[in-house]
C-alpha cells in the first residue's frame, strides 16, 4: 500500500466501454461503407442495452436476458462480418449456412447417427462405467487411511497427466468401434472422480462423526447416513468435471480410427473435404450435447444437495 491516490482518478473501464467502439465505427465506416457502420452501430446499441440492463435491480429475467443478448450480438457480428468482408465459406461459413444444415433431412440423419455413436455409445457408457467404478473404489478404500494417503497424491498427479494420449493404445486393444472410445473415457474420468470422492468422504467434520459414535452407529450406518451425504457436493463436482472430459475423450479417440460414423470421424473427414458448414454443425451438436450433459448433472446436484449452502444461496 505504498501508492495512494487522491481524487476520483481515471476510470479506465468506462473509457474502454464507450470510446473504443465509437472510434472503431468511425474508422471502419470510412473504409468499408455503410453496411459495416450499421453493424457496429447495432453492436454498440446492444452493448448499451446490456450495460443499462445490468444496472437495473437484479432479477431472474435480467440474468437470463443479458447473456442471451450478448450471444446474439456475437452471432450477428459473425454473420455481418462474413458478409461485409466476403469471407470465403471454406474458411468461415456464416451462422445462417450452419443453421441451414439442420433443416436438411439427409444431413440431419447423419448428425443423429454420429450423435448416437459418439455421445450415447462412447461417452455416456464410458462415463457411467468410469465414474461408477471410481466411486466404488473410493468407498472401498475409505476404511484404510493408509491407502487414502497414498491414492490422493497419486490420483491428483495422474489427473493432471495428458491421458488423452492413451487413445491410440485403447483403439489398438478394443478395436475401432465404440468400445475403445468408452475405454478412453473410462480412464479419463476415473482419476478426477476418484480424487473428488475420496476427498468428499473425508469432508464430514469431527463433531458430526462423534455424534454418530454417540449414537452407536455401525460403520455402514455412519457411511450411509453421514459420510456419503456429506460427500455429495464433492462427488457432483467430480461428475461435472467428468462430463466435459467424457465428450473430449470420445471425440478425440475417433481420430485414431473409427467406423464410418461418429462426430470425431465426421469432423476430421469433412475438414478434409473443406465442407466447413457440416463441421460447424457437428460442433454445434457437440456443444449442445456438452451443455445438456453438464446441465443435467447440475440439475441432479441441485436435487440431491439441496441442503448445501452453495445451493441455497
Amino acid at each position, binding site marked *: 500500500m505504498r501508492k495512494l491516490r487522491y481524487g476520483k482518478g481515471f476510470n479506465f473501464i468506462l473509457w474502454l466501454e464507450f470510446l473504443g467502439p465509437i472510434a472503431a465505427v468511425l474508422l471502419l465506416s470510412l473504409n468499408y461503407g455503410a453496411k459495416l457502420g450499421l453493424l457496429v452501430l447495432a453492436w454498440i446499441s446492444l452493448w448499451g442495452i446490456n450495460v443499462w440492463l*445490468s444496472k437495473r435491480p437484479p432479477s431472474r429475467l435480467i440474468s437470463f436476458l443479458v447473456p442471451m443478448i450478448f450471444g446474439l450480438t456475437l452471432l450477428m457480428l459473425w454473420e455481418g462480418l462474413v458478409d461485409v468482408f466476403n469471407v470465403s465459406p471454406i474458411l468461415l461459413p456464416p451462422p445462417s449456412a450452419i443453421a441451414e444444415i439442420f433443416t436438411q433431412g439427409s444431413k440431419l440423419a447423419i448428425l443423429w447417427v454420429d450423435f448416437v455413436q459418439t455421445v450415447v455409445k462412447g461417452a455416456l457408457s464410458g462415463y457411467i462405467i468410469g465414474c461408477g467404478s471410481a466411486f466404488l473404489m473410493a468407498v472401498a478404500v475409505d476404511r484404510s487411511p493408509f491407502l487414502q494417503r497414498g491414492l490422493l497424491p497419486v490420483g491428483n498427479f495422474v489427473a493432471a497427466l495428458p491421458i488423452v494420449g492413451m487413445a491410440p493404445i485403447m483403439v489398438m486393444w478394443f478395436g475401432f468401434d465404440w468400445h475403445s472410445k468408452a475405454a478412453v473415457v473410462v480412464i479419463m474420468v476415473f482419476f478426477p472422480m476418484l480424487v473428488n470422492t475420496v476427498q468428499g468422504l473425508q469432508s464430514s467434520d469431527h463433531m458430526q462423526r462423534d455424534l454418530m459414535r454417540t449414537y452407536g452407529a455401525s460403520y455402514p450406518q455412519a457411511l450411509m447416513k453421514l459420510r456419503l451425504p456429506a460427500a455429495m457436493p464433492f462427488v457432483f463436482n467430480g461428475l461435472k468435471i467428468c462430463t466435459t472430459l467424457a465428450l473430449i475423450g470420445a471425440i478425440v479417440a475417433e481420430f485414431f480410427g473409427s467406423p464410418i460414423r461418429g462426430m470425431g470421424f465426421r469432423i476430421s473427414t469433412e475438414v478434409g473435404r473443406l465442407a466447413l458448414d457440416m463441421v460447424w454443425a457437428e460442433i454445434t451438436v457437440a456443444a449442445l450435447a456438452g451443455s445438456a450433459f453438464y446441465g443435467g448433472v447440475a440439475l441432479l446436484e441441485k436435487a440431491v444437495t439441496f441442503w448445501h449452502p452453495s445451493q441455497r444461496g
Partner: protein
Amino acid sequence: MRSFFPILTVVSSIFVIWYLAAIALNSTWAYDKAKRADVTLTFSQMVADTLAQKKPLLPAPHQVAKEIYKTTVLKKITSKRSLIWHGWITLSATLLGFAMGTGLGIVLAVGIVHSRAMDMSVMPWVITSQTIPILAVAPMIIVVLNAVGVSGLLPKAVISMYLSFFPVVVGMVKGLRSPDAMQMDQMRTWNTSRLGVFWSLRLPSSMPYLFTSLKIGVAASLVGAIVGEMPTGAVAGLGARLLAGSYYGQTIQIWSALICAAALAASLVAIIGVVQKVTLKRMGMAL
C-alpha cells in the same frame, strides 16, 4: 514424509499390476508364435517372451524405460528420432499457448470484476465455452489457419490457449474479488481510485488463486498442444509420435511418448509450484 510409504505402496502396486497385465495381454501372441514354430512353451519361457516382444500389446515398464533412454540420451538432440527434439516442439507450443491463455484470462477477469455488464454477459459464455469439447474443433482450427497462411507453432498454441484461459478466468475472478469488505472500506477511506485499489489491493490478494489456476492451466495447455499436433499429419512433436506409433503398431514408441508427456506435465506443474512458493513467501502470504 507421513505419506511417503502410502504413496510408495500405491506406486509399486501400479507397477506390479502393469507387469501382470503385460504378461496376461501378451501371452496370446507368445503362444501363437510358439505354435507356429512347433515348440511348447514352459511358463517361465512364456513370461520371458511376453516381457521382450518387439510389438507387444502392452510393453513392460523396463522396455519403455529402455526406449526412452535410447531416444533421449543416445540420440543427438537435433535428430528427428530424438524424443527431446519432439518434446521441445510440443513444449514451445504449450508455453506460447499457456502465455496467451493466461494473458487473455487475466484481461477477461479484470474486465469482469470491474464492469457489471461484462460480468453478466461474458461469464455465462465463458462457462458454456468449456462444455464445448474444443479438442474436437482442433483439426478445423489447424486446417483453416493453414489456409490463411498461419502454420507452425501458432495454430497449436491457439488450441492450448483455449484450454488454459478458462481456469485462469475463474480463478482470477475469485481472487480479484477476495479482498473483504473491511479492506475495500479502508481503501475508500483513503479515497483510492479504482486503479489504485486494483494495484495495491486486488492484484496482490489474487496471487494465491492465480497460481492454483496456472497449475491447472499449464496441464490443460499441454493436452491442447499434443492434440493439436495430430491432425497436421504427424510431422513433429509428442502428439505426432503418438499418431505415428499408432499407424505402425509401435506400442513401445507410443508408451515412451506418453511417459515423456507425463513427465513434461509433472515438471511444468512442479516449476509453477516452486514459483508460487517463492512469490508467496516474498509477499508474506506463505501458508
